[in-house]
């Protein structure tokens, strides 16, 4: 029983240590990630329903395809990668540790036969003198050697950059650090969005899922402006923002210029220019067909109003001077869209100076009510992305480690040289854990120089 249990544990452990599993996970992550680039992520599935039909939509929903990068199976794969990485490192670390900290300092027969680069020099010089010379040579040309004497012959060993054996572990560790940073960000940070109309301030931040964040200060939009290139392409979106603590402007955060690619950070919360829009208000009155029962009606640019007969209306466009479009008429006008309870959509222009036309239109379409345009108050709002992410520096630290680790792993190598000095014969050999071709070149030059040094 016990041994079978042990056997299972061992095989699970070996599975988690294996590079085959690593290949499998990496390729699976690559292939599965494609799904989320084809199926739009994070949009309400209803919008997608029309495109793919209800059966498929249900299936995708169950499989988590509409938010696949947060689905249980994708996260599971990332955890598997992490476990695989940790197990594999644990298994291999002792061997690397030994190579770095307990090097074989004596050139044995088996070691000798494993060298790709080796050279034997015969010499009549005394072994002690040879030892002195070799020691000095290695010290200046390569690295300070360890010297051992065994049975009257001398063994010298020296190495360069043994620590770069650890670089792969640094790379792997950096992946885990990045994951930790990401988790800190999702646990202790937020991503939100605010719209602030010019001249107004907000003190709460809407987040995509969950309750609004109350940061404890408020932000006022003093002004929003849009600059264009001569060809009409957008050049700059600019908000002027002021931070208020208990309603009082914070001096260093007054009239801060925030543009795309230049955010503002206050108390760890950052505001990014992201969009803008019309926050104007439109004023109407409604009457019945006789012009009686006057009531006021105010609409903003992004909302609609419901009329007594159940139809809903919203403003499409307004102009201060209708004569530009309809010669003969004058004054301001608004173009509205009406959705009737019967499901029809109509467009109508209502005028400020021509109540008779407004009444005429209403009569032509049956009953009332009659709409009259009274004018507008223009305003724009600025749309700001708001984010707080205390994990981001952990992520950057991980990234820096990763880049440094990859660089060292690829371009530095642990080079070792052994020299054995016997009576009448000197053997020099070596190896490198990376890039054998360039080591061989290096070794040839080194051993050449060494030969002339000792002779």
């Amino acid at each position, binding site marked *: 029983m016990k041994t079978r249990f042990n056997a299972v544990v061992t095989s699970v452990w070996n599975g988690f240590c294996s590079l*085959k599993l690593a290949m499998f996970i*990496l390729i699976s992550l690559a292939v599965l990630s494609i799904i*989320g680039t084809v199926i739009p992520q994070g949009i309400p599935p209803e919008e997608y329903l029309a495109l793919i039909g209800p059966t498929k939509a249900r299936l995708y929903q169950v499989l988590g395809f509409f938010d696949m990068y947060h689905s249980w199976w994708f996260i599971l794969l990332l955890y598997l990668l992490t476990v695989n990485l940790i197990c594999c490192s644990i298994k291999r670390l002792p061997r690397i540790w030994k190579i770095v900290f307990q090097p074989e300092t004596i050139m044995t027969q088996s070691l000798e036969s494993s060298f790709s680069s080796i050279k034997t020099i015969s010499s009549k010089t005394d072994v002690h003198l040879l030892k002195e010379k070799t020691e000095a040579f290695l010290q200046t040309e390569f690295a300070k050697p360890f010297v051992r004497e065994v049975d009257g012959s001398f063994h010298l060993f020296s190495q360069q950059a043994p620590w770069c054996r650890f670089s792969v572990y640094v790379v792997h560790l950096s992946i885990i650090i990045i994951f930790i940073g990401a988790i800190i960000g999702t646990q202790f940070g937020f991503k939100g969005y605010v719209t602030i109309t010019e001249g107004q301030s907000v003190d709460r931040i809407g987040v995509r899922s969950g309750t609004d964040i109350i940061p404890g200060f408020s932000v006022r939009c003093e002004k929003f402006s849009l600059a264009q290139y001569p060809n009409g392409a*957008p050049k700059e979106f600019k908000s002027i923002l002021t931070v208020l603590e208990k309603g009082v402007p914070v001096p260093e955060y007054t009239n801060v210029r925030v543009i795309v690619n230049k955010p503002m950070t206050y108390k760890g919360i950052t505001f990014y220019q992201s969009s803008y829009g019309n926050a104007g208000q439109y004023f109407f009155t409604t009457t019945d067909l006789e012009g009686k029962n006057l009531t006021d009606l105010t609409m903003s640019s992004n909302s609609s109003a419901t009329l007594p007969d159940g139809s809903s209306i919203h403003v499409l466009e307004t102009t201060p001077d209708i004569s530009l479009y309809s010669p003969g008429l004058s004054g301001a006008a608004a173009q509205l869209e009406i959705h009737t309870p019967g499901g029809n959509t109509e467009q109508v222009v209502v005028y400020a100076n021509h109540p008779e036309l407004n009444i005429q239109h209403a009569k032509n379409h049956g009953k009332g009510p009659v709409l009259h345009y009274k004018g507008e108050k223009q305003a724009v709002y600025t749309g700001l992305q708001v984010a707080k992410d205390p994990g*981001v520096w952990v992520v950057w630290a991980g990234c820096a480690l990763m880049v440094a680790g990859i660089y060292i792993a690829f*371009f530095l190598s642990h080079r070792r040289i052994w020299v054995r000095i016997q009576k009448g014969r000197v053997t020099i050999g070596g190896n490198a854990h990376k890039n054998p071709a360039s080591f061989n070149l290096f070794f040839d030059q080194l051993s050449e120089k060494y030969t002339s040094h000792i002779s």
Partner: protein
Amino acid sequence: MTSSFLFNITTIADLISMLLFFAFLASRSKALGFTGITVAYAGFLAETVAIALRWKESYDMGVGHAPLSNLYESVVFFSWTIVLIFLLLDLKYRYRVIGAFVMPFALLGMAWAQLGMNTGIEPLVPALQSNWLLYHVVTCFLGYAAFAVACGISIMYLIKANLTESSPASRDGRIADIFPPIRVLDDLNYRAIMVGFPLLTLGIITGAAWANYAWGTYWSWDPKETWSLIVWFVYAAFLHARITKGWVGKRAAWLSVVGFAATIFCYLGVNLFLSGLHSYGGGK
């Protein structure tokens, strides 16, 4: 002299260089290989000057920015980086034939850019007005170019492996004789990816840093981001393949080809077929 004239010269130089390398492949005349690389150098020089000129021209127009702001400029730059990596490889290892498998990529880019795209200099939209654009684009494209070279080398590997397996002594088998030895091709493939992988890593990191700086999220699973990660996973798999038994040789070469296909999809396919934040799309 204008930049657009020099870009045309570059396109022609890339074409001639490629044809010379093909002739070298067929004839094995060393002189042809030498002429091919010389013409490649000339084209590279012309393109370098052209890119610098275009940069200056944008300042003369009052919309000064690095010439990396739209699809045309990026394709031209991609071509430049491919030739750069190939020439560096040639300086170090002197395997000229590789040109026959790498110059076509550079030519394809230049020809498409010069013949099929609007070449006008445009002002920068607000989203691109940042120094991060330069760091991000340069690192990404240098990485992509190294992968292009690795892909060319892998194709040579696969050709040579197939020819020597199926008909070692026949005439066909000997076409690949002037290819570097199969072990060298395998090694060069690895070396090119060893250059590309850190650069792609830097490209992804600078992109994340920029996104964080401009929008407050370093990663939002936008299709372009995701595809760059897919490419990164494929090459990470390639690197580990070398340590795993049974995944070397042909399989590794195929992985390199698949990696480059994913790279090209990340660069172009995402803009053409998927939607997202990155604004190189739209082509014209």
